[in-house]
């Protein structure tokens, strides 16, 4: 056993270590092979900027869904980022140690709750509230933004908190020694010093919002038309795949893979930006 064990390692571990790379390559290749022919057939410009999605008529334009994705994500960021940053400052600076040790697992739990459950909760509470107080069908960009704002909290909070906590204590001591209040220290010393980590957390939050499917399906209304207000229903790139993949075939199915390509490219760009921001420290 000992000899056997000594002989396998290096190469075996190397092969195992290639699993992540091969998975990434397979995912990219298979999704591109399925989707690219359709983009070529419809035309890149018509696919990305086409206003009409009507698979039965052979019309595959995803522009309204790109707009839907951008609006829902933007809403989630506007609503979620301030709360998440305050919460990470709370954990890193204000909370007594005992309390932060309780709040941290709670936020981790928030990340673990199935996204369908969030969507359903939104359908029961947020959608009727919007319908009654703000008008419109309730199933709307605003509802999607609110649910996504909650769902991206854990990502932004945990990464920002880590970058705040990993600052050298000297920074804080220096600011205090100069007579700054705790808040002045946070605002003018700590947050600026941690800004690349905070930026990375926001970019990763954007990535989560762009990629979320099931929660958004339940509250967004899923209309394929271009929305004209935040109280209108809309469709995102992910929900387009989630809704239609169940029954699509032929070109229609390929068009959903093509939608997946657009999604994958957006996510890859966001991830690279986040990794760059983290490294820049």
């Amino acid at each position: 056993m000992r000899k056997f064990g000594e002989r396998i390692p290096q190469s075996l571990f190397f092969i195992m270590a290639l699993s992540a790379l091969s998975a990434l390559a397979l995912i990219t290749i298979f999704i591109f092979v399925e989707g690219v022919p359709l983009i070529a057939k419809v035309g890149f410009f018509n696919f990305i900027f086409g206003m009409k999605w009507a698979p039965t008529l052979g019309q595959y334009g995803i522009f309204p869904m790109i707009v839907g994705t951008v609006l829902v994500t933007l809403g989630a960021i506007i609503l979620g980022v301030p709360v998440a940053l305050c919460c990470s400052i709370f954990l890193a600076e204000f909370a007594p140690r005992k309390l932060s040790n309780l709040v941290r697992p709670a936020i981790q739990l928030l990340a673990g709750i199935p996204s369908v459950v969030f969507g359903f909760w939104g359908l029961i509470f947020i959608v009727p509230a919007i319908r009654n107080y703000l008008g419109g069908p309730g199933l709307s960009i605003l509802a999607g933004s609110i649910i996504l704002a909650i769902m991206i909290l854990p990502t932004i909070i945990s990464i920002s908190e880590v970058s705040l906590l990993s600052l050298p204590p000297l920074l804080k001591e220096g600011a205090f020694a100069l007579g700054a209040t705790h808040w002045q220290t946070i605002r003018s010393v700590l947050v600026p010093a941690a800004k690349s980590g905070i930026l990375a957390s926001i970019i990763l939050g954007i990535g989560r919002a762009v990629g979320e499917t099931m929660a958004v399906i339940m509250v967004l209304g899923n209309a394929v038309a271009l929305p004209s207000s935040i109280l209108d229903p809309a469709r995102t790139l992910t929900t387009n795949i989630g809704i239609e993949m169940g029954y699509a075939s032929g070109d229609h199915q390929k068009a959903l893979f093509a939608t997946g390509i657009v999604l994958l490219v957006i996510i890859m760009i966001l991830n690279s930006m986040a990794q760059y921001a983290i490294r820049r420290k």
Partner: protein
Amino acid sequence: MKIRLNPRTSQKIAKVVIWSAAILVLFLLFSVIIYILSEGIPQITWQFLTQIPSDMGRSGGILSTIVGTLSVTLVAIIVATPLGVGTAFYLTEYTHESIITKIIRFSAESLAGIPSIVYGLFGFIFFVIYLKLGWSILSGGLTLAVMILPTIIRTSEEAIRTVPPMYREVSFSLGGTKWQTMIKVLVPSALPGISTGIILGIGRCVAETAAVILTAGSALRMPTSIFSPARTMAVHFYILAREGISLERAYGTAALLIILILLINIVANLLVNKFVAKGH
């Protein structure tokens, strides 16, 4: 015109705002959990847990979806654990930082960011169609394995890195080989950390919907082998709630899911605390 606040006043305002943000987050978390549990727990009866759904899920229990969830998760963990832990050992013990480790890390970090619906598309075209595994527990489990791989790699790598170098040196100085050091010294010390990664992976599998519905299918029959299609609890909840089949059973399923996730998180936290308490 810029209003200059007295530093003491702005300190007070900031404190109030920051505390209320934290309270808001906790309030949202608990309102979701308490709502689902209060509506769902009364639905969970012995029959609910032990009967197979009938009439599309309108009546009967959810036994086959519990079995579906457990088997898909089991396949994912069995496949992803050795690959993830092996990758972590390669990155920490068998190589120095190089272009290869950079590529491997970049791949893992990229996988972590890919949306679950894209995993669903991939699993469908690769496992279900190309490898002809059909909608099955195997296809679903393999897709989830790829999805949780980065989590397991990252947590295992951190766990192995935090084993003090002295442990290795002592083992080597006693004549231990690299393999013996790994099996007898590193694995036991890093075990709580590695297990945390596996448990977080289990949590993701249990909660996942988009990737599973496209690869394991949504059949309500009791699966008989890993080649059977299966419906997981999360998928069952989604279908019941979205198609308005049975709200009571939807709440019951969601409550059971939340309870599972709570347990998984509690175990993960106990492990993390054990890990920290050991002085790593």
